[in-house]
């Protein structure tokens, strides 16, 4: 069994353990209600984390996503305000395209100017946030600016689950196919594991990195529309602030290595679910909200420790096993 598989099973067990512990502490904590709240806590981070996978696999990181989300969401919100009858599909499409375009900016700066991705995206983090204020004239998008159907997508409808969940499931499945079942996925691993070797093998490494940032941008742009649907407003200051930390933490907890070249879509999805489970269970078993950040910080550090333990034990064997 590969280490990735072991890590995935470990994550699954942790999620079960958390709910089990919660049930032991307080039987009321493990009700259907809790599971529904758990479900609602996931979609936004999940979609954005899927976008972060190719970037991390390439050995890069995109920390501009909080502001990228806000800028896409506010632009789509303004579109809806200007044109209330706009079909929802167009709204989603617009969000995705705007996000992808912003992703091109990130990817271009990283690959063409050879500036480290942390610094580029730290710069665009503030750049995009400022643009959000400029384009919106610091005005919030209110619930009555958004079509009712958009907000209905995040509510439990006739299907028993909110339609937004289906969107999320489709994206996770599509990312799984892209990363693990298509030729392109392996190239991301190759770039992250050893960029020089990848280039020698004839892989257009710069194009892969650019593609990774565009994918991240597109999915985060989509997340922006999902945000508007879920919360019913878009605020230029608050929307997406600190979101990058949630997403990167979830991906790292899910075993996607920050050093590049290692990780899986399922692991990442489980990481998002684990973090969401902890977030939901803590208040239910009487741990005050003020402890939340402390717990999250420790979880990220623990996940890094586990990642390193696997790396030193498995060595190069792990990377080959994952890429195959």
């Amino acid at each position, binding site marked *: 069994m590969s280490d990735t598989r072991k890590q995935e099973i470990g994550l699954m067990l942790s999620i079960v353990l958390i709910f089990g512990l919660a049930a032991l502490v307080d039987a009321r904590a493990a009700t259907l209600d809790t599971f529904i709240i758990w479900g609602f806590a996931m979609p936004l981070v999940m979609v954005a984390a899927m976008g972060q996978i190719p970037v991390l696999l390439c050995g890069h*990181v995109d920390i501009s996503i909080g502001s990228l989300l806000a800028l896409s969401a506010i632009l789509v919100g303004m579109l809806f305000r200007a044109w209330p009858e706009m079909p929802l599909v167009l709204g989603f499409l617009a969000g995705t395209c705007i996000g992808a375009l912003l992703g091109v900016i990130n990817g271009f*700066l990283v690959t063409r*100017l*050879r*500036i*480290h991705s*942390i*610094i*580029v995206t*730290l*710069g*665009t*983090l*503030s*750049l*995009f*946030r*400022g*643009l*959000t*204020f*400029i384009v919106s004239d*610091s005005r919030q998008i209110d619930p009555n600016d958004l079509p009712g159907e958009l907000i209905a997508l995040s509510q439990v409808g006739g299907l028993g689950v909110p339609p937004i969940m289906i969107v999320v499931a489709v994206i996770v499945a599509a990312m799984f196919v892209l990363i693990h079942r298509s030729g392109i996925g392996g190239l991301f691993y190759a770039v992250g594991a050893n960029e020089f070797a990848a280039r020698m093998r004839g892989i257009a490494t710069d194009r892969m990195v650019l593609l990774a940032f565009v994918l991240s941008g597109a999915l985060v742009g989509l997340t922006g529309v999902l945000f508007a649907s879920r919360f019913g407003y878009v605020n*230029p*200051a608050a929307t997406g602030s600190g979101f990058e*930390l949630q997403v*990167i*933490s979830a991906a*790292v907890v899910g075993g996607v290595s*920050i*050093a590049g070249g290692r990780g899986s879509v399922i692991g990442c999805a489980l990481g998002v679910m684990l973090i969401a489970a902890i977030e939901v269970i803590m208040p239910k078993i009487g741990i005050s909200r*003020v*402890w*939340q*950040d*402390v*717990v*999250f*910080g*420790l979880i*990220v*550090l623990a996940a*890094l*420790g586990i990642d*390193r333990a696997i790396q030193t034990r498995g060595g190069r064997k792990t990377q080959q096993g994952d890429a195959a």
Partner: protein
Amino acid sequence: MNASDGIFTRLMLRNETLTILLAVIVAVVASVLSPGFADPQFLLFSATFFAEYGLVALVMTMLIISGEIDLSVASQMALSACTFGICIEGGVPVAVAIPLTLLAGAAMGAFNALVIVRLGLPALIVTIGTLTLYRGLAQVLLGDRSVTQFPEWWYGIDYATVLGLPVSLWVYFAGLALAAAVLHFSRTGRRIYQIGVNRSAASKVGVPAARVRGGLYVATGLVCAIAGLMTSSRLGAVRYDLATGGELQVVVIAVLGGAAITGGTGSILGAFAAFWLLVLIQTAMVLENIGAEIQLSVVGGLLIASLAIPKLVQAVANRRDRARAETQLDAGSNRKAQS
């Protein structure tokens, strides 16, 4: 960079040059736009708003030169300040609370050092983790309360002046002198550069890399505690969300100052110039009634521009060199053909 480059190209390839140039341009433009701008007293007072970040950016510069980074600095400032706040609230005298706060800062830095240097985990993500952790602990300490019951004399480090200079800036300049002495005139400073250029090579020739890197993180914690204390005095209140997002400003100052994230390059002069560039630009925008959020955008754009311009100059210089080499080659082959 090669020897045949003109002085202009060579200067433009240094990040410090561009930063100093930009600072001058901003100063000139702002003085023309707003008559009140070119008042030294006013500018010095404006600088007190940024003095804490400027101070932390000095150690950040050294960290980045050694190939490290610490994104938890703003959280360390907050947790130190909250430690101070809780001490004061508990009736601990200031003379005892200050060393305790410094100790707390050093302990946070030591924890970062332990995880990054001893366990060998990547600094970027570890400090994203401790960013959340320290901010969380600050929230556990104080909850949503703010502490304001400091003794009367504690308030207003930015208003109090000694010899016409605000106390905040005295602290900043003291830090500047110390940082320059360590980085540019001591063995430790040379070791910091050596580790940043090639850590394993440095270790092989006997540089105690682990000790220097660990020491830098502890120093960062200590300086963050000082910055936290300064902020508590300036704001007159301490809350868990003190200095939220400050890591951006600190990293921007260090990187604008020419510290390369890949390690090995950077200087205290650069960090000093970048500090003033930020002070001038943000003050100018305040005078022009430009909102804080748009200022943020400008700072971000500036960060990217300051990195992109040297690269572009380099690219142009390379192309010119190549063109020159080719013409020489052509001339050579022509001569051969004629003879």
